[in-house]
């Protein structure tokens, strides 16, 4: 397995004393669709923020595509795409211009950016919204645009942090069609954090369970299911709930 994301003894403590990450070790292979699961406050978001260069680690190390944070943040940023929980849109710009600007920010020429913007408008079915300002779009279309922006520069690694929040079933279906195609065809490594466990169950092959800033399980989704309920007839959500409840009882 070619390792795409490598995390070694990663630690993060916030100024208020909360130890969000207590020595995370994790390896994610190239082309994997990897689900990072855990209850609220477990450290998922902190881990994703560190990996996407939004915040800095205290200690430990990580690399994405062989690039470490000490080497260059911009190199990592060119390599990754991030779809976070909140829409990050400039409400005063049109769909097309936002996509074009995003391309130019990532170093594409104006012509390349315009062509890419057209491709993504087509892919995310935003043709009728092309010249509308982002602030005037419906919730679902804002979400589509938000996702499209993360793909402008054709990233090798995608971070999906609760990506389908606020999407209607059709938009959600379209979104997963695009993501799974990128994952399977272009071998785009995808790290997903979600509370919609049916999505993780359906699309992820590998997973990790993070609790109280520590990785408690890392492996195949099927392996996790087998570990919790060996008869394999339960969904990931059922297994997840059983696992979390058993931990609570133990503590």
């Amino acid at each position, binding site marked *: 397995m070619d390792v795409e994301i490598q995390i070694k003894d990663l630690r993060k403590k916030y100024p208020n004393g909360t130890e969000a990450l207590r020595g995370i070790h994790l390896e994610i292979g190239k082309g994997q669709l990897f689900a990072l699961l855990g209850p609220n406050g477990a450290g998922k978001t902190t881990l994703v*923020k560190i990996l*996407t*260069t*939004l*915040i800095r680690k205290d200690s430990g190390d990580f690399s994405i595509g062989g690039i470490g944070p000490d080497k260059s*943040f*911009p*190199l990592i*940023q*060119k390599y990754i795409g*991030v779809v*976070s929980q*909140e*829409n*990050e*849109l*400039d*409400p*005063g710009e049109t769909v097309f211009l936002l996509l074009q*600007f*995003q391309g*130019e*920010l*990532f*170093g594409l020429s104006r012509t390349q950016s315009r062509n890419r913007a057209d491709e993504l408008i087509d892919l995310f079915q935003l043709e009728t919204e092309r010249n509308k300002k982002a602030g005037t779009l419906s919730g679902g279309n804002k979400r589509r645009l938000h996702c499209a*922006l993360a793909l402008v520069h054709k990233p090798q690694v995608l971070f999906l942090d609760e990506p389908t929040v606020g999407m209607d079933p059709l938009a959600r279906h379209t979104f997963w069609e695009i993501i799974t195609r990128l994952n399977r065809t272009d071998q785009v490594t995808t790290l997903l954090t979600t509370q919609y466990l049916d999505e993780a169950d359906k699309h992820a092959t590998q997973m990790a369970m993070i609790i109280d800033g520590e990785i408690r399980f890392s492996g195949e989704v099927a392996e996790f299911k087998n570990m919790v309920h060996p008869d394999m007839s339960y969904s990931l959500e059922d297994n997840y709930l059983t696992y979390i409840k058993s931990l609570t009882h133990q503590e």
Partner: protein
Amino acid sequence: MNHAGKILLTRGIVKLAKQPSAPLMGFAMSLFFLVVYNAGIGGVGNMDVFGSGGYLSFIFPITIISLSMGSSAGAGQTLNTDIQSGYFKRLFLSPVPRWMLVVSPMVADTLSSVLFTGILLGIGAIFGLTFQFGLLSVLGILFLSTLWSVTLCGFSAGIMLRTGQHQSAAIVTNAVFPLLFLSTTFLPRELITSKWLLTVSWGNPITYILEANRYLLAGTSSRMFLYISVVILLFTSFLSITFALNSARKIKF
């Protein structure tokens, strides 16, 4: 300037052009000062102490200072809008130097301020404003105006980044406003009778900026004021940029 810097600066200028209320208000306020003060008390300009430039050259520098005061909120507004909409996070995740995200709207704001200063100088010239050293005077005034704008934009942007409220831009204007009255704004030192005001005016950086502009316009002040004001403004510009960049580091994602 690299590719990313250019497109971020272009965006800053476009944003400012789409929301021109801050620079236009600054310009209108300055023009108002110029017309009202010159019309109201311009007659005292016949006194020898005002030199050949008359009261227009004497009062003109305050219009430049107030122009930047009125328009310095633009950069902070752009940053604040981006932060509120979450778009700043997307920019933050782009492969561009992060200081550029803060500095580019400040540069756009400063360019706008310098542009309007140029227009003001043109209007002043129509009204008979003199330029003691010709083109050098114009360039000197634009240079001082640039540094003054950077100072105000940086502090204004920094405060907005820390408070997250665009109304807080008024803090900078409110802080500077009293300094205008504790200086040689309306009368030269020779005509100020209060000793405490004279003393305070020497410790007030606005005095040096006003006098430097007066030196360039009519030669009525010492060249030393120009040197001192450049040093002061370089220092305050550095402080304000540092403050804005440090404020950006405190944004929580």
